[in-house]
């Protein structure tokens, strides 16, 4: 909205003053009534003594409450007062003139004149109607003259006025003028417009004062320098006058100049000294702000910056110690040490606070990671700095370890607290008589969970990412990284975890100690082995007490397995007696023991998996021999000694006459073969797994097999002996073998080896006939039945019995044939006689013995 034109404003103002007080709104501007112009009536002097009536003193009552009404009433009272005070010569016209005098454009007399003329035109009650036309004419002329007299100066003034008003309009926000009031057509608007000039002038004055106020300190400062300047000027004047006045006295001048030089040098020296001190101050001391930060500041980046400065001061102070007088260095070092003490304490407290917050209210501590002061980066940085102070650092580490250990132990123990967990949906760990494995499994799983959680926590705080530490002196990182901080997370974790090692061991040990089952103990060993692996995977070192305890428990459990087997043997092996009609079977305990052993082996294979028995390129097994339950010692105890020692001894004790009596020996051999055949059969499935050859030595299975073969071989010999004796060929067999082994005969030429026998009376055909013929003919047809049904009948393995009988018959048959041919060879003339004595042909002999 534009401001109203000034001329219009003044006219409208005049008219407004004539309006009745109760008019609500101003009417549109009326055209000037030229007929009311009173001509060249001289304007009376303005009444400068007029005063606005006191509204409170007035007896008029404000009936209305609005401002407009009040103002209207006020205007009415004013007019009334004006009229009453008028001394007949004063008119409203003058009053308006008076008002117009306050209009800003009062500088220009022309405009005043025009205004006055115009006012005269609109007023004028005593007009001579007669001269109206003339006056109108004159006035028209005058007006046209005025209007035509639109000189450039007038125009410029208007333009300037417009420009000023426009400027006011543009800066309306900066000037505290009530714009709404200014453009208000009401009385308040009129008043406001009237006071516009004075308001603006006030504003300008205020601005000027403000500017001057700004100059005040500058001037004050300048005044301060005025004194010294005056002195300098006086001195300069004095020097100049001195030099001019005494130009001839060169010596004096020179002294003066020297004094000046000396003073200048002193000044330069002092300046340099000052610079030096400032540099020293900057390099070797902290300012008050920094000092305050060190003592009272929060641990944040600003604090670390100050700290870096302290470290630098410390480094620089060491140089000072190298000076001849090391007082300054010592003092500085002492000061820095005090700072370091404060810093260390501050860091210690900060770090403890951090841990305490984490400890007491874990979630909120995590929250605080996002806050500046409690973020992990600040924590780690503080810890890096603290690691410079070994005493505090160790104290902190030990306090953290202690606090976390306690918490760790509490968490572990709370798993067993039945009352505490009453309302929880997580069942407490309870030992069940039926399921000790589950109890141990629960215990170890809870430890595993706790370790996993703790590792998570420790890594988040104590695993350092050194590249993240900006603005940290390298010396600090390099010095402490390797020694104290590297692997601090693992170290802390291990120390914290150690707190439950004994509690955990006791709980598992009580199960193992009372567990009698080898299978359950083996399951426990398996669990312990597995958790050993998993704990190590989580960062627990092998030297940790927890791991040591687990290993120790594993050993205990392994021992218990061994004890289970040895106890079984002790309890079940009792002296046995085999009567004449005994079946010569294995002792009862052997079958039970083998069942137990095989069951255990099967479980072992199943739990270990086939891969654990696979051999690598060197024929060694891939599994760690030291850690396996069935190590060589264990195998010897449970799978070798019970058979090769205990069993053999028991059987020998059962047949004490075996060495003397062939028949008893035969029984002993039969029992032994039966036992070892059973052992071999039961252990056969584990030949290539559990009982595989170990370190190039003969395996337990091979030992059993060899023993069995040995026993069968012994049996063959005994049986052959019986057979040869039954047929009467035993003596001749021994005789022939003494001269040359029967088995070594290759062809008929070898028969000559026996020519010497011709001189032996035993080789007399009659003697042979007497010793052999009858027995042979009598026994041979029943030989097979006799051997198989009587002697070998009690062998449980038919294959072994067949093998023995076949071997014996073949041996007999072979000897019979050779014996017959040698006799013919030795007695070529009595061939017929020989054939009569040994009346069976080799084929017949074979057939009778059931050989093919």
């Amino acid at each position, binding site marked *: 909205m534009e401001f109203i034109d000034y001329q219009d404003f003044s006219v409208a103002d005049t008219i407004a003053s004539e309006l009745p007080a109760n008019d609500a709104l101003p009417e549109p501007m009326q055209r000037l009534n030229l007929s009311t112009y009173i001509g060249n009536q001289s304007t009376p002097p303005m009444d400068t003594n007029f005063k606005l009536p006191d509204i409170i003193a007035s007896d008029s009552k404000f009936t209305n409450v609005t401002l407009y009404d009040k103002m209207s009433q006020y205007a009415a009272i004013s007019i009334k007062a004006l009229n009453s005070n008028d001394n007949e010569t004063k008119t409203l016209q003058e009053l308006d003139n008076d008002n117009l005098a306050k209009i800003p454009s009062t500088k220009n007399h022309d405009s005043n004149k025009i205004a006055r003329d115009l006012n005269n035109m609109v007023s004028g009650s005593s007009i001579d109607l007669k001269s109206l036309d003339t006056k109108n004419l004159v006035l028209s002329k005058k007006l046209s003259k005025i209007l035509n007299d639109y000189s450039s100066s007038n125009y410029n003034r208007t333009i300037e006025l417009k420009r000023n008003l426009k400027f006011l309009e543009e800066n309306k926000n900066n000037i505290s003028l009530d714009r709404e009031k200014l453009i208000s057509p009401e009385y308040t608007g009129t008043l406001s417009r009237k006071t516009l000039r004075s308001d603006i002038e006030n504003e300008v004055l205020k601005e000027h004062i403000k500017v001057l106020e700004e100059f005040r300190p500058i001037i004050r400062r300048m005044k301060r320098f005025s004194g010294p300047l005056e002195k300098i000027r006086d001195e300069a004047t004095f020097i100049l006058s001195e030099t001019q006045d005494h130009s001839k006295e060169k010596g004096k001048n020179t002294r003066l100049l020297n004094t000046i030089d000396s003073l200048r040098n002193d000044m330069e020296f002092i300046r340099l000294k000052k610079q030096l001190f400032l540099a020293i101050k900057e390099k070797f001391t902290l300012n008050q702000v920094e000092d305050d930060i060190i003592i009272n500041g929060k641990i944040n980046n600003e604090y670390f910056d100050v700290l870096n400065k302290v470290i630098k001061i410390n480094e620089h102070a060491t140089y000072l110690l190298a000076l001849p007088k090391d007082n300054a260095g010592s003092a500085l070092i002492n000061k820095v040490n005090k700072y370091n003490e404060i810093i260390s304490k501050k860091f210690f407290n900060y770090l403890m606070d951090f841990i305490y917050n984490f400890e007491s209210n874990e979630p909120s501590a*995590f929250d605080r990671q996002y806050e500046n002061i409690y973020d992990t980066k600040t924590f780690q940085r503080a810890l890096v700095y603290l690691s410079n102070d070994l005493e505090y650092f160790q104290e902190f580490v030990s306090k953290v370890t202690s606090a976390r250990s306690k918490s760790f132990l509490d968490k572990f123990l709370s798993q067993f607290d039945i009352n505490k967990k009453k*309302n929880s949906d997580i069942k407490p760990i309870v030992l069940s008589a039926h399921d000790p494995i589950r109890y141990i*499994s*629960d215990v170890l799983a809870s430890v595993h969970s706790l370790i996993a959680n703790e590792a998570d926590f420790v890594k988040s705080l104590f695993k350092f990412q050194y590249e993240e530490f900006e603005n940290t002196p390298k010396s600090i990182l390099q010095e402490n990284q390797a020694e104290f901080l590297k692997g601090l997370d693992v170290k802390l974790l291990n120390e914290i975890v150690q707190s439950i090692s004994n509690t955990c061991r006791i709980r598992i040990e009580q199960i193992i100690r009372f567990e009698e089952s080898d299978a359950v103990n083996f*399951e426990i060993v398996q669990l312990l082995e597995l958790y050993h692996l998993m704990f190590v995977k989580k960062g627990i070192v092998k030297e940790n007490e927890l791991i040591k305890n687990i290993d120790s428990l594993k050993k205990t459990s392994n021992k218990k397995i061994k004890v289970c087997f040895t106890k079984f043997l002790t309890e079940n092996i009792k002296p046995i007696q085999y009567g004449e009609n005994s079946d010569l079977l294995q002792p009862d305990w052997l079958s039970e023991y083998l069942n137990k052993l095989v069951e255990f082996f099967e479980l072992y294979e199943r739990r270990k998996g086939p891969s654990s028995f696979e051999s690598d390129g060197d024929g060694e097994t891939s599994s760690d021999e030291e850690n396996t339950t069935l190590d060589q010692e264990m195998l010897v105890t449970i799978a070798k000694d019970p058979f090769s020692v205990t069993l053999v001894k028991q059987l020998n004790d059962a047949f004490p006459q075996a060495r003397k009596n062939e028949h008893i020996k035969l029984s002993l051999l039969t029992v032994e073969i039966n036992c070892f055949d059973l052992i071999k059969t039961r252990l056969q499935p584990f030949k290539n797994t559990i009982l595989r050859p170990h370190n190039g030595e003969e395996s337990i299975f091979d030992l059993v097999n060899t023993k069995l073969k040995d026993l069968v071989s012994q049996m063959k010999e005994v049986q052959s002996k019986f057979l040869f004796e039954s047929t009467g060929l035993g003596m001749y067999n021994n005789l022939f073998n003494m001269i040359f082994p029967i088995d070594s005969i290759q062809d008929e030429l070898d028969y000559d080896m026996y020519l010497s026998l011709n001189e032996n009376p035993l080789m007399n055909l009659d003697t042979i006939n007497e010793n052999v013929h009858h027995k042979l003919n009598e026994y041979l047809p029943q030989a097979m039945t006799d051997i198989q049904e009587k002697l070998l009948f009690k062998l449980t393995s038919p294959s072994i019995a067949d093998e023995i009988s076949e071997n014996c018959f073949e041996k007999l048959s072979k000897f019979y044939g050779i014996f017959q041919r040698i006799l013919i060879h030795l007695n070529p003339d009595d061939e017929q006689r020989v054939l009569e004595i040994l009346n069976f042909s080799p084929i017949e002999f074979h057939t009778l013995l059931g050989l093919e």
Partner: protein
Amino acid sequence: MSTTPSATQQTKKSGKTLSKYKIVFLGEQGVGKTSLITRFMYDTFDDHYQATIGIDFLSKTMYLDDKTIRLQLWDTAGQERFRSLIPSYIRDSRVAIVVYDITKKKSFDFIDKWIEDVKNERGEENVILCIVGNKNDLTDERQVTIEEGQEKAKKLGAKIFMETSTKAGYNVKNLFKKIAKSLPEFQESNSNIINETTGAASKTNDNAAGTNGATKAGVIDISTTDEQEQGGCQC
């Protein structure tokens, strides 16, 4: 609504606090439990199969709906010889994810046994059961249909059923987001919202929101696209 101590604790922990939740992964050997975790943790997939020895542990912080939770993932071995360990880990788990291989019917049949194990340890109410059909990318070899999976999930009372492909990275983040939203921390706010906003209106709009499905202990609607679901998850 019953206020167990844990529930109270959860209420205290509202806002920016960090709650930890134990999740156990169950299933037959070779169904993809480890690869599911690897995809979630590192967004990678390894073609080379390596059997898990014992129980493995990994943890990850998830930011969801202005809340932060830490998921502790316990990866169990599928091999028979490690079976005896698993109940001890189910004992204190909040969530049990039973994974099967959609190309191996046998692994699907064994879900009943796994769920039974979980229920024996944790009861019916105290655990969030999830059934996940993995190897979704092997469509030619599929032996178990989605419908069969959904049917089984409904029958066994699993709150979440989903098919995933760890190889293709399909639905994995979605799965964990759904699991996170089923946790008490999110459930509380969800139920409040539902109670406040729906009220009677929910009767007429049963299928409007997935959360409704969850409260019905039925099968969560998985028809929403992966992209849509992954929008708010910054894990």
